[in-house]
């Protein structure tokens, strides 16, 4: 599993952490530093676990977005499939998987230290989708 995008993604997350109040043009407060830290931790864990699974998949860099609730959203998208993970300030996270071609949606929550099996399964589905 190759993830040479990780350092650049961390830099992006640091920029998101420094956004001023009102960054969303609707009065949202700043992104929570704890959410940024949790997002970095989650990405590192994902990369590590994908290596342990022996996956040869090339997982693309996620898009990084701040959310109005002070969290950080990671997005992977390919073809008709997408995976969104909103990392929250309390170190929890919510994920949303959608395959519009197959008419499938799934949502779930992750707590700190929880197994990432579901997330990895959906991420590999997105990676496998044809653009």
């Amino acid at each position: 599993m190759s993830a040479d995008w990780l350092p650049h993604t961390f830099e992006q997350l640091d920029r998101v952490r420094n956004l001023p109040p009102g960054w969303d043009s609707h009065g949202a407060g700043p992104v929570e530093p704890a959410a940024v830290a949790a997002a970095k931790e989650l990405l590192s864990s994902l990369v590590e676990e994908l290596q342990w699974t022996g996956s040869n998949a090339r997982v693309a860099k996620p898009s990084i977005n701040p959310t109005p609730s002070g969290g950080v959203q990671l997005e992977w998208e390919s073809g008709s499939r997408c995976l969104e993970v909103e990392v929250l300030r309390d170190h929890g996270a919510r994920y949303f998987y959608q395959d519009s071609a197959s008419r499938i949606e799934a949502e779930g929550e992750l707590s700190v230290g929880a197994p990432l099996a579901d997330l990895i399964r959906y991420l590999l589905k997105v990676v496998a989708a044809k653009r």
Partner: protein
Amino acid sequence: MAGEPVLDSEVLLRRIPPGEAWLEPPDRLTSANFKLDRRRNEQGLSVYREKLVTVEDVLKKPGAIHGSRIAAATAGDVRALRNAEDQPLGLEVVPCEDATDVGHAEIRGTQPGRLSASASRALSRLFKLRA
């Protein structure tokens, strides 16, 4: 807060923050642009009715930041949105204007103060940036 009911034919305008700091590409609409601020207990997504305000008015409202853009969709299309499994999302558009905030309305989910990840994604695909 109230106002006359929002007709299906009405065009809704939503401010989108400039995303140069994080978005790739920076003019992309993402589901994060259509999430509620849970820290402020937002009940719905803030939009403006084009029949009552101009794009310029919306970009001058309190809280609007320099460089923001406008995305638009009709109320009827919002109400008709369905998820990937072809189930109705049940979104409603309600007037919320008062003397200090003319033309204001909100897109609300089926439960107060909640908007599903599926709804946020569908809205991000429906709304189109104005040139």
